[in-house]
Each structure stands twice: as C-alpha cells, then as structure tokens.
C-alpha cells in the first residue's frame, strides 16, 4: 500500500471534526458561566439536596450491584447450562435499552399497575415516587455494565490457579474469595466505575418510574432539567459537577486498567 495523501488528509479532518464535536459542548459548560457563579449556584439548597440524593441512591445501587452482580457474574462465567447465551444476552439488554423504555418497562413490571405491582404493594413496599424507586431504576440501568465486565474478568482468570487451589483442599467459596476475586480485581473496579457513571447520569427511567421531588426522587440530572428553563446558570453548575465526577470516573478506569497491564507483566 503506497501512502495516499488524500487518505491521510481524510483521517486528520475526521479526527479534528470528532474531537471538536465531542469536546466543545463539555468545554462550553465551563465557559458559559464564571467559576464564581458556578460555586455560588451549588450553595443553593435545591442543588445540594439533589447532589446528596444522587450520592445516596448511586451508592446504594452500587452496593446492590456488587453484592448480587458479583456472584451472578461468577455463575455465568463458570457454569455451562442450556440457554446460557440467551441468559447473557438478556442480562446485557438494559445496556442498550433507551432510558424511556427502561422507565416504561419498570412501570409495567413493578409499577402500581404492573404485573408484580399488586404483590409488591401487598408486601408493604413502595417504589414509585420513593427514593427506593430511584435505586431500582439506577440498579436496572447500571448493573449490566458491571455484570458484563465481571463475567469477562472471571472467565479470563487462569484456570490452573483455581484448580491448584481446589486440589490443595480449598472449597469453591474460598477459592472464589482468595484467588478469583483478587485476580479479577482491576476489571471489577473498572466495571464498578462504569456502572457508577451510568447510575449517576440516569434521567429518563428515574423521571418516569420514580417521579421528581426535591430530596426524595429529584437526582442531579432531574434537577438540571428542572432548572434549565428558569435558572440556566444553576443548571450549568450542576452539570459541571457531573462532568467533573464523570471525568474522575473515566480517569480512574484508565488508571486501573493501566495497573492491570503492569500487574499482568510483573510476575513473569
């Protein structure tokens, strides 16, 4: 293949277009409003309630995802059963569902008129319009990010390590805790970060399923939408917080995967 100048030019132009397109809106958030004004807007009680609620619901959702998603992913990674490929696809489906569909789906499943709605309210559990409903929405949309990553990580753990532990008399549970989890840790951390990012940004499913009420169900993205029409600078301020947190998440994923590469090389 001889170098074609026009091809190189196409690459450069495409790269420049992509970079500008993806960066400009994010930069604009910080340029459109002065830093002083941003900080001032964050002092607002409504903004603080939203930030606190987002922190709380995201944390609970993540704990649920880790507690149930980790063993579930291990099951998917280590067991062969009929319909496994289908099960994996179903587990991953929320990954590509539009948020509005997720909201409708949750209402149809566990909403007041949903197929399990009666049973849930008989059990005395309130989800819709409650903070618990926000947690359900976040968990639904974010967990596939973690489960997928965790399953891949568990699948790639060296079998001989696990078998060695078993032949030395360790139970499967012990092998899982002492060998598999540490070996998969960098990937699990990356999966956690991705799920965190998705949960933090959830909007549509939360609004449709849990509603919007200050301090109860109005997370940061909902507060941003609510502010947009009346107080643009305040909406920008909250947006800038999400940008900063998301950037931190992305950065930590990159650092973790770097550690993974280095860690992989170390023993040899």
């Amino acid at each position: 293949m001889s170098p074609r100048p026009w091809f190189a030019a196409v690459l450069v132009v495409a790269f420049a277009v992509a970079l500008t397109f993806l960066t400009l809106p994010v930069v604009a958030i910080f340029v459109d409003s002065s830093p002083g004004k941003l900080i001032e807007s964050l002092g607002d009680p409504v903004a603080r309630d939203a930030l606190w609620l987002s922190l709380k619901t995201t944390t609970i959702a993540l704990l649920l995802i880790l507690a149930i998603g980790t063993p579930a992913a291990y099951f998917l990674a280590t067991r062969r059963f009929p319909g496994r490929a289908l099960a994996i696809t179903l587990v991953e489906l929320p990954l590509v569902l539009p948020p509005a569909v997720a909201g409708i789906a949750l209402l149809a499943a566990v909403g007041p008129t949903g197929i399990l709605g009666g049973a849930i309210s008989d059990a005395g559990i309130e989800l819709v319009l409650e903070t618990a409903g926000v947690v359900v929405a976040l968990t639904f949309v974010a967990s596939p990010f973690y489960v997928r990553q965790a399953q891949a990580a568990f699948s790639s753990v060296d079998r001989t390590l696990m078998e060695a532990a078993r032949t030395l008399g360790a139970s499967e549970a012990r092998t899982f805790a002492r060998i598999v989890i540490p070996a998969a840790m960098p990937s699990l951390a990356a999966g956690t970060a991705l799920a965190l990012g998705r949960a933090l940004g959830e909007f549509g499913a939360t609004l449709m399923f849990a509603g919007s009420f200050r301090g109860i169900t109005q997370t940061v993205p909902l507060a941003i939408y609510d502010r947009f029409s009346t107080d643009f600078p305040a909406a920008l301020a909250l947006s800038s917080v999400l940008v900063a947190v998301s950037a931190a998440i992305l950065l930590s994923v990159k650092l973790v995967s770097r550690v993974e590469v280095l860690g992989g090389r170390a023993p040899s």
Partner: protein
Amino acid sequence: MKTGRGPITVAATALLFVCGCGGKGGGDKPRLVVSAASSLTEALSSCSDGLPDAKVRLSFAGSDELAAQIRRGVRPDAFAAANTKLPDELYRDGLLEKPLAFATNELVLAVPTGSGEVHSLGDLRKAGVKIAVGSDSVPVGSYTQDVLSRLPTAEREQISRNVRSREPDVKGVVGKLTQRAVDAGFVYASDVEATKGRLQAIRLARSLQPVVVYGAAVVQGARQPKAARKYVRGLRSGNCAAALRDAGFGPPQAQ
C-alpha cells in the same frame, strides 16, 4: 473497494435528513417548525398533518422549556404556549412577534377512573393521598399554585404535604395518573379528554379556577414568517381551531 464513496454518501444523506438542510423538501410547501406546549399534543398533531400550505413539524415540551430554548437561540417558526405570560415576556424582549391568544382551557383535578381515593378537592387533604403536580416553572404548575394559593392556609399546607412529584410538563402528571402512581393530579380538562376515559375530571369551584389562556406567536427571525403567521392565525380560526374545540379547548375571548 475502488470507489469508497458509499459511506460518505450515506453520511451526507443522513446529515441532510437530520438537519433538514437542502431547501424546502417535500414538494414546494414551506417547512414550519412549531414549538408547542405539551397539552397541545393531541389537538395540534391532528390538525397540522396535511395542511394545504405548510409541512409542519411539531416539537412538544413544557412551555417553559420551549421558551428557554428560544432564549438560548433556538429559532422555531412559531411558539404556542399554555399561558400568555411566556409569549408576552419573549415578545417584550424582542424574540417574538406580537402574540395572539388562541384558546382557553380549564384546570381540573384529575383522578384515575374508578379509583376511590379522591372525589373532591377536600379529599386531597387526607393523609396518604398521593398527588402529582407540574413543576413551578411550567404553566400547569403555576396555575396549580394559583389554585392552592386561594385556599385557606391550613388546607393548602395539608395538600402540599401530599404532593409527591413535580413533573416537568403536564404529560408527566397525566402519566403518573394513568399508571396509578398517584391518586390525583392537576391537569387541563383537555388532557383528561385525551385519555379517552382512563382519567376522570373533578371540576374546581369557579372561585378557585385560574384563567388559562393559550398564547402563540411567530418567532422573530423565523425562516418561514409568512407561513408561520398563517399557521398562528389558523389556531384562532381554521382547521386547528376546530381541532382545538374538538379536543376540549375553549374559544379565545375577544381581544
């Protein structure tokens, strides 16, 4: 792979579709972009299809969101709001031509059909009743605040305590009601009509009723000002006026 033009052609065609560039498109009818209040969804969707002199693209959201978009530089050809306040403000700031009142509506208390919880405004005070309202910035929310502000303080506070969701537009309130996530909500009479029996309206006492007048105007700098003016006039008298009456909107008072 000799030509390599396929993907580029596809991308260019896609762009054309998305941005609506490339002139008039769709024969020689001018293409109108109309930003309209959520509560106008059914009425305007039915009358704007197949208008003889314009191809209309409607964008529905809370009137406050649409007004904020216009303030941020979005330029639809026309703006139809669920109040006259937002169009008047935008007109004063030079962003709209003179607004025209084109319909009235009535704020009602809506309940899911057949639910036993709420039969009157007074029932909203009962502990455990769940209410959805519009957020303060959207017209339906501010009309709701008007109603509540006319009630005695104690009653107003009891009702406010039962508010469980503040939705960004009236369709959000309707959705919470049809899903039976709440027992009652304040919406427009036309919204109840549009649910075809799934919701029931409880009328408010005349002394509590806010004056709900819809205003529309051509946006300054509209690409199709002539067609837009015709469309806005048609909201008052014409196909769309008839569709509005059918949907349960009242005629505008003489100006």
